[in-house]
């Protein structure tokens, strides 16, 4: 057991926390935060696991560096989409499909039609 392996296990725990939040929380911005936590966990697993035997390893570090920049770009794009969604629908959570389609199917169709 080396410190690197400790960080790898912490990354696994972070993945779990992030996954739980991603499933349970309905607010979209918090879902995005949970998704980012999951991503950080994956990065920790990648680097920690690769380094626990042979010391510092630049290859996974470079991959993680690429991953961080892609993650911030994806987060920014997600924020743009969430704000657009909020702007158009006034909601901060996705609609519940089970509640929405069954009783309201008829009126919903009528309401959607003129907007298109």
């Amino acid at each position, binding site marked *: 057991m080396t410190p690197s392996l400790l960080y790898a296990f*912490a990354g696994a725990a972070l993945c779990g926390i992030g996954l739980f939040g991603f499933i349970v929380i309905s607010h979209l911005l918090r879902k995005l*935060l949970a998704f980012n936590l999951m991503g950080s966990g994956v990065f920790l697993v990648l680097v920690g696991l690769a380094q626990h035997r042979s010391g510092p390893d630049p290859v996974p570090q470079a991959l993680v560096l690429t991953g961080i920049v892609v993650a911030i770009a994806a987060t920014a794009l997600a924020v743009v989409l*969430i*704000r657009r969604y909020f702007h158009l629908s006034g909601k*901060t959570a996705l609609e519940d499909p089970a509640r929405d389609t069954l009783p309201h199917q008829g009126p919903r169709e009528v309401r959607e039609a003129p907007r298109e």
Partner: protein
Amino acid sequence: MAEWLLDVLLVIALLVTAGSVLWSRDLFRAVVFFIAFGLLMALAWVRLHAPDVALAEAAIGAGLTGVLLLDAARHLSNGKSGGDDNKEEPS
């Protein structure tokens, strides 16, 4: 021994901050916890001998993500009253 203590404390702090991001009461607080989480991640990268990643994480996790998410959080909670009105109208 002291290094082990540092690592264990850092890991515990990471997990606690991650939990606080998800279960704090208001959105603003969650975003602030997320910024703190980014800074702790930068420390973890330093502990993992990855200074390049630590630099990137500090610049991105604390600077850019913070501004982006704080702006979004303010916007989403500001418009909440107006948004609820919109939700009431069709039904």
